[in-house]
């Protein structure tokens, strides 16, 4: 119990970062190798979590607890349940892959870049394992800073605009979120007479509906910006388009999940009455469905490859929030699986787009065509990622979307009917993208000489491809891991 | 001449503070400005130690230790900034720099 496994997982990237700082910044080869090793070590140390996790136990596991600022009731409290486990594993794997894929794409100021990545990794993992609202907030903000620099320093031509937009959106969101958390903190002091930020203490609060609703909306803004939910999503396409490949991958695959995780860890368990309120649920469900359809429609007309995928993220994350606010076990479990699946498939798509960008230095869809002839392996990988994203059965996207639809169907049939159109549109915008870029004749002569995937690029893609097949074919372990925490949330909400 | 009382120390501290503030506000060279800041900090230190001896406990003295450490760090950072500034702007005169506007 006291082997500090979670602390090790949390601080391995930080240790890597400290050593990285000692490497002279001119030695880019060593920097790269070390950063990859550190990220890989971060993944390796997280593996025991999977093997030693007990899916049949309720509550949190691997719990670590120490006082941090006793006078304020702030604790260093870590612990994971099934929900966090999936997201931690997603973070460590994607984190490593994002570092690995930067091998070629980042050729300047490597030291700072990799330092930022490792710092980002600490923040992201911290968000998913904190059991103390204050600690959670610290990590939440910690994520913001490296991401800002990754976009702002290593990004594309409009990187400053994108970075500032990203920063402002998320900062405003997190300030409101902080207000919500502080409100909970003070209410806890009022009711129990001692200070505590710990989630388990905050859960004991007894609040009237009106108070819950105020706090709910404050937290909502913070989480919804991160997800991002319509209409708070406009930072996302800009951030994605300007970010370097590794940044896009982390952003789409892991960081967006911080928002949905916030809903599942804070909004629903801490504010059950507000979360189950009919009006609140209706509003969020409608916003989610708008996001699903709107994101899909906007994707359809994007001229930029990366922007298209960014908008498709809006659509897919709409499924996740819809699943959460069905407030039933299927919706929540489906939402979690969809989150992992989105992390995999969108991560793959961004990786692939990054690879093509390295070759051609453009992402205009109209600059491509007939790539399948020059880069067959690339085309195959892209097809797999595309169909995983479009929800083809036996790939991961279907499992998540289907389970969410099932949950939505249980909660309100109309939702399911609307959401199903998102599935149809997903096929439309992805297949059309595929046709314009991969199929047909080679329209630009520069594309004739593009090299196919290298072994290193294949190694980057292969684990994610295998993972998407695993979830699609045998998702039962995921459902098992999620059963307990999801049941606990549902029980709290429907009490 | 009577014994040196807390009041004397406070007067000294006030004098040092005023000298320091005047230095910060009027001197053109940033080096002198930094030195003046040290004066201000030392004025505070004297104040703290004086009260500490007056109140017969050590809290003030401990705080003074912190401030000394802080002053060191500040001087280091300040001089570092100054060097960076000199590299870029070729000046150490405060009124020739208006970077704070940006």
């Amino acid at each position, binding site marked *: 119990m006291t082997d500090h496994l979670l602390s090790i997982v949390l601080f391995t990237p930080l240790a890597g970062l400290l050593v990285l700082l000692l490497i002279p910044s001119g030695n880019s080869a060593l920097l790269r190798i070390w950063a990859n090793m550190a990220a890989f070590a971060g993944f390796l140390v997280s593996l025991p979590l999977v093997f030693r996790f007990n899916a049949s136990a309720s509550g949190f596991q691997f719990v670590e607890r120490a006082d941090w600022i006793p006078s304020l009731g702030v604790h260093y409290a870590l612990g994971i349940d099934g929900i966090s486990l999936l997201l931690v594993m997603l973070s460590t794997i994607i984190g490593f892959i994002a570092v690995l894929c930067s091998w070629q794409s980042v050729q300047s100021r490597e030291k700072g870049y990799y330092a930022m990545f490792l710092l980002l990794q600490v923040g992201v993992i911290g968000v998913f394992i904190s059991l103390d609202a204050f600690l959670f907030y610290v990590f939440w903000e910690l994520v913001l800073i490296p991401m800002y620099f990754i976009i702002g320093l290593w990004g594309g031509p409009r990187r400053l605009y994108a970075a500032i937009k990203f920063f402002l959106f998320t900062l405003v969101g997190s300030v409101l979120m902080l207000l919500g958390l502080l409100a909970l903190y003070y209410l806890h002091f009022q009711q129990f007479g001692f200070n505590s930020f710990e989630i388990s203490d905050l859960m004991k609060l007894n609040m009237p509906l009106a108070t819950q609703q105020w706090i709910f909306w404050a937290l909502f803004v913070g989480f919804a910006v991160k997800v991002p939910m319509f209409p708070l999503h*406009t930072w996302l396409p800009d951030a994605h388009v300007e970010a370097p490949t590794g940044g896009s991958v982390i952003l789409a695959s892991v960081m967006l999940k911080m928002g949905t995780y916030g809903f599942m860890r804070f909004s629903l368990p801490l504010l059950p009455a507000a979360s189950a309120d009919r009006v609140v649920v209706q509003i969020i469900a409608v916003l989610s469905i708008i996001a699903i359809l*709107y994101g899909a*429609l*906007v*994707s*359809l*007309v994007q001229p930029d490859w990366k922007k298209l995928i960014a908008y498709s993220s809006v659509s897919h994350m709409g499924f996740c929030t819809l699943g959460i606010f069905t407030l039933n*076990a*299927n919706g929540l*479990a489906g939402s979690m699986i969809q989150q992992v699946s989105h992390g995999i498939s969108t991560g793959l798509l961004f990786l692939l787009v990054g690879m093509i960008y390295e070759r051609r230095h453009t992402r205009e869809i109209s600059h491509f065509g*007939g790539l*399948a*002839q020059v880069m*067959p*392996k690339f085309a195959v990988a892209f097809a797999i990622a595309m*169909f995983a994203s479009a929800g*083809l*059965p*036996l790939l991961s996207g*279907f*499992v998540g979307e*289907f389970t969410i*639809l*099932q949950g939505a*169907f*249980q909660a309100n049939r109309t939702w*399911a009917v609307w959401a*199903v*159109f998102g*599935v*149809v*549109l997903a*096929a*439309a915008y992805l*297949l*059309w993208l*595929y*046709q314009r870029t*991969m*199929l*047909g*004749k080679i329209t630009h002569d520069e594309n004739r000489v593009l090299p196919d995937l290298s072994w290193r690029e294949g190694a980057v893609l292969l684990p994610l491809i295998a993972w998407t097949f695993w979830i699609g*074919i*045998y*998702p*039962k372990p995921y*459902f098992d891991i999620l059963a307990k925490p999801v049941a606990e949330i549902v029980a709290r909400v429907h009490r | 001449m009577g014994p040196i009382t807390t009041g004397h120390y406070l007067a000294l501290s006030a004098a040092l503070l005023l000298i320091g*503030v005047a230095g*910060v*506000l*009027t001197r053109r060279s940033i080096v002198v*400005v930094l030195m003046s800041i040290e004066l201000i900090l030392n004025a505070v230190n004297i104040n703290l130690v004086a009260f500490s001896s007056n109140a017969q406990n050590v809290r003030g003295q401990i705080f003074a230790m912190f401030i000394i450490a802080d002053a060191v760090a500040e001087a280091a950072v300040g001089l570092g900034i100054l060097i960076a500034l000199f590299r870029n702007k070729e000046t150490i005169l*405060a*009124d020739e*720099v*208006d*970077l*704070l*506007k*940006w």
Partner: protein
Amino acid sequence: MVSALDSLWLIPLFPLIGAAVALLLATFAPGRGKALVSVLCPGTVLLSFIASVSAVAALAKEAARAHQVIFAPWLPSIGAEWGIYLDPLSAVMILIITGIGFLIHLYSVGYMAHEGGYARYFGCLNLFVFFMLLLVMANNYALLFAGWEGVGLCSYLLIGFFYRKHAAAAAGMKAFIVNRVGDAGLLLAILTTFAAFGTIRFAEVAKAPAGGASMTLLALLLFAGAAGKSAQVPLHVWLPDAMEGPTPVSALIHAATMVTAGVYLISRSSAIFSLSPDASAVVAAVGAFTAIFAATIALVQNDIKKVLAYSTISQLGYMFLALGTGAWWVAIFHLFTHAFFKALLFLGAGSVIHALDGEQDLRHMGGLKKALPVTHATMFIAAVAISGIPGLAGFFSKDAILAEAFRSGSTALYVVGLTTAGLTAFYMWRLMHLAFYGERARHASAHEGPWTMRVPLIALAAGSALAGWIGVPEQWYTPAVFRAFPLWIAPVFHQAAHAPAGTPMEWVLMGASAAVALIGVTLARYFYHHRPAMPASFEQSLKPLHGILLNKWYVDEFYERLFVSGLAKGGGRLLSHFDSGVVDGGVNGTAWLTRLSGRVSVWWDEWVVDGAITLGAYFVKLLSYPARLLQNGHLQSYALIFAMGMVALFSVYVFSR
């Protein structure tokens, strides 16, 4: 002794292995291992066929005639698992899929010999067989859906096999997206099934008590899925375009197997449809309308594969007509016979195209009988069979459908069915005459394909001739072996294999359908053989009608008008500007519409959503002007202000006491 039923999982596994090997080869060593693929891929399907035959033989010995194996859970939330369900219905399907699938694989070895992407082709084809087997062997709706989408995927990949050609790639996309529309219905149907019955296993749904009023809705959702996959009006537009794929693919996927998945789905859900007469009526009506609608289009098409494609749609309409009248086994019987003769027709057409180096236009053919004797003879049998001339496969199944339509009491359904039978005979013999007879033997170099292409033709021709003899009408008083098909399959639907006692009326009906078929054949012969000038003069005198038929009743254009021009009038100049950019097709029209709403959303995004933020930023900027005057950037002026503030505060503190 190990029963073949214990190793059912081998049946889909073989083609999956073949697909994996071939696709890996295609990806990592393109152009290599051609010999390996030529043996392996047809071989796996043959193995699978052998396994299927032994499994079906073992099933026949079982008293229960239904065998369910569950391997592992899949989607626990809805109780879906990896499981196999074999009953007489799926038994028929796996025999068709593996049997005809093997013949078409064999044919492809010859047909595709000179095409690039050989391994990719066979990999996709094997993958298709795997998914199709998954579809029909699944023990629950969700797993069926996996196979369902899987065959859609393979269809996409194979239609777009010649992906360098824009039309092929676009046709693949169109097929997938139109199918997705139907699939959305099927998805909702699965969820409704679970809500109504609490299970999605076929065996349990069939036994579950009636779920009440939602049955009609559920049945219609299922039908939406079926209509997409089986190209029923109004979702038929993808199938003619799908002919861009290689011809063996058209034979396997778009004639014999995949497009019949809708028929399979509905007969699998017969328990649900029995509870909803309204939904059944819709199915029958749509089927009948599709049958005659597609047949009229087939009359005038000039592309040999397009004729066959519309013929397939029409024949699928027949099957749905039978399903809608509750004649489940008859629908499956027609599915069974149709698989033989339609696959044969496509393969024959493939032989013709192969011999003519890719020529598909009937107007440029003629007199090929001498050059292609095997192709001609086998296609002749198929054409006789599909026309419904007594004695061959098509006659028995089509006659059974017409009899059921008559028995259902709806004269309209019967008349439509009978008319379609006449049209079928006519367009099929028009095709035969244009391709094989007549004088214009321009293609001196035309020759038969290799044995791999000829053997499947002959095998399928035998099937087309004989397959009907296991379902001869009741009133023929033949031994039971001639009624093996209904006896085998009718119990699945809890129906008697015996029709109501034969009446003289039955003979009249049979005579009528035979007569109509003969009239069609004779007319075609008269038009295209004795008076070759007549078709042209008919075209002249009936120009408007001919134009309508040639343009497929303008459905694609109608979709375009409905979605495009109707809105364009309201939308004004902007929309009419876009109108010029709209390409043909209902799907394109819909895609355009959705793209338009996408643009509106983008506009909204940029001006309203983003605008609100920019406006906020602007106000902040406005308010900041006075504050900016204080900011001159000089450190010491800031410090001075700071010091003055301190003094001011201190003064307040001191003097206010």
